[in-house]
């Protein structure tokens, strides 16, 4: 990744702390294509249950798709305590205890699984919420850090973000705000104003602009990136139609995927393009991800 003095100036002006800047420290890897670092939101493999038992298959599929970076959901490494005879409250309490007391070397071993196959965990996706204690939030950051992640990201709203603001800096990391397209909920990150409001809560916040949802909420992705790129650590790159429209294969919706990629490339913005899809397909997850990735490669050729 090339990090220019101009970008540094913009980031500094935007008020980002040095912790948040750590996002740019990653080395380009096998899915760094013509100036854009690609990764995957791995719930794209919809034919693969997201749990830690399937993690080896996830890694195998990432390699098969030629991807060297991943935004890892916590469910790929955290145990699931839910099951017959276990109440939701009991399962939640067990998970909290596990987070506070993970087995020794647990995260180091998982990081090695990814390191050994040339995959970097850029961020951990976890929906921090009201049920999290302060100690649990700290433990979440420490776990993510041990995996090599520079930050965490999740689907939380303004209220949770307000509480979360003090945490990432303590761990030398960032927390990223991810938008959906719920324009009716005043707590939701959905449009430019709500994301800007959230970013102001902490210098250690970045935005993970979900291009699909932003488009469905009739947002202007290109304008947003032009105005706020210094605070954007990643984009979730997919396609949807406007007016709360449906998800589509790349190139069939209203999201300006090609233009976004070229903006990132030509301005040398240090943001990660995380492939993501929710449209239906009769193809395997690996085949569909490959189609999306190839579409992006052509856009940058």
């Amino acid at each position, binding site marked *: 990744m090339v990090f220019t003095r101009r970008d540094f100036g913009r980031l500094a002006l935007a008020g980002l702390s040095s912790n948040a800047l750590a996002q740019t420290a990653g080395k380009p890897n096998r899915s760094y294509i013509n100036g854009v670092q690609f990764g995957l939101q791995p719930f794209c493999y*919809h*034919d693969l249950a997201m749990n830690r038992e399937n993690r080896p298959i996830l890694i195998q599929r990432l390699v098969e798709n030629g991807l060297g970076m991943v935004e890892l959901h916590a469910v790929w490494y955290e145990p699931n305590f839910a099951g017959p005879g276990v109440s939701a409250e009991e399962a939640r309490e067990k998970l909290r205890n596990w987070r506070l007391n993970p087995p020794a070397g647990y995260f180091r071993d998982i990081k090695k699984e990814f390191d050994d196959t040339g995959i970097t965990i850029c961020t951990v996706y976890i929906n921090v919420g009201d049920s999290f204690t302060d100690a649990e939030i700290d433990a979440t950051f420490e776990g993510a850090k041990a995996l090599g992640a520079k930050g965490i990201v999740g*689907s939380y709203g303004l209220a949770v973000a307000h509480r979360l603001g003090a945490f990432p800096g303590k761990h030398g990391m960032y927390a990223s705000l991810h938008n*959906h*397209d*719920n*324009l*009716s*909920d005043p707590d*939701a990150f959905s449009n430019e104003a709500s994301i800007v409001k959230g970013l102001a809560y902490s210098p250690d916040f970045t935005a993970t602009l979900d291009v699909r*949802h932003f488009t*469905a909420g009739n947002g202007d992705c290109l304008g947003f990136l032009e105005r706020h790129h210094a605070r954007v650590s990643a984009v979730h790159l997919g396609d*949807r139609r406007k*007016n*709360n*429209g*449906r*998800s589509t294969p790349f190139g069939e919706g209203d999201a300006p995927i090609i233009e976004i990629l070229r903006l990132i490339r030509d301005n040398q913005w240090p943001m990660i393009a995380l492939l993501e899809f*929710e*449209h*239906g*397909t*009769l*193809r*395997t*997850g690996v*085949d569909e991800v490959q189609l999306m990735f190839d579409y992006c490669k052509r856009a940058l050729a």
Partner: protein
Amino acid sequence: MPHRQNLYVLFCGVILAAIASAQATARPGYDINYIGPPMADPVMQHSKETYVLFGCSYCHGLYLVARGEATDLMHSRLVGSDENGNVIGPLLRRGIPQTAKLSPMPQFSDLSDAQIADLVRWIHYARQQGRFKEVMEAKDAGAGNAAAGKAYFEQKCGTCHATADVARIAKKYDAAALKAQILKPRALEASPSWRLERLKDAKTAAARQRHGALLENYSGAEVANLIVYLQGMK
């Protein structure tokens, strides 16, 4: 002899491998592990593929086991009240923009009537399969109440079935078989056919639809009540 056995095992293995290979290569890229092998009924197969292709399965689950915050279509009252898409169709076209959920249900405004009919057909089929399994396996339905069963019968079944006919049918089955017969009457479980006399058999089609709708909405307790009532008619 061991040699012959080995040859037999090898032969079977080759045949199985050939079948698996044929399935896997029948349609390049087709996700047979997720979508499953082709169904006997091509119309239903098409409906299932439409449900997958428009992304419904991504949130609501291929067999209506919802993922994340998506509505549970297996138990949704709205789906249970739908008749031939009269509820689901308009909802698909407009979506649910006002919601407390993170991601509102998208609008599928560009769907054709035929595509909506396909989606609706799959949703009801999958729901009926799922509800049948659920009610058959229910352990907490209780012992049943004959009076409640009688009231249910008179309200939901009596308009089509004479009490004497049902009493005669009930005598033929034990409780478990009677339960299955109530949920899915065998007389209505015909293989798909395009023979004109079958296509124009409106009475059977109406009965199938009616029983399908009941199956989608039965509770375990209601079925237990019906069984006790019907068995008491002997």
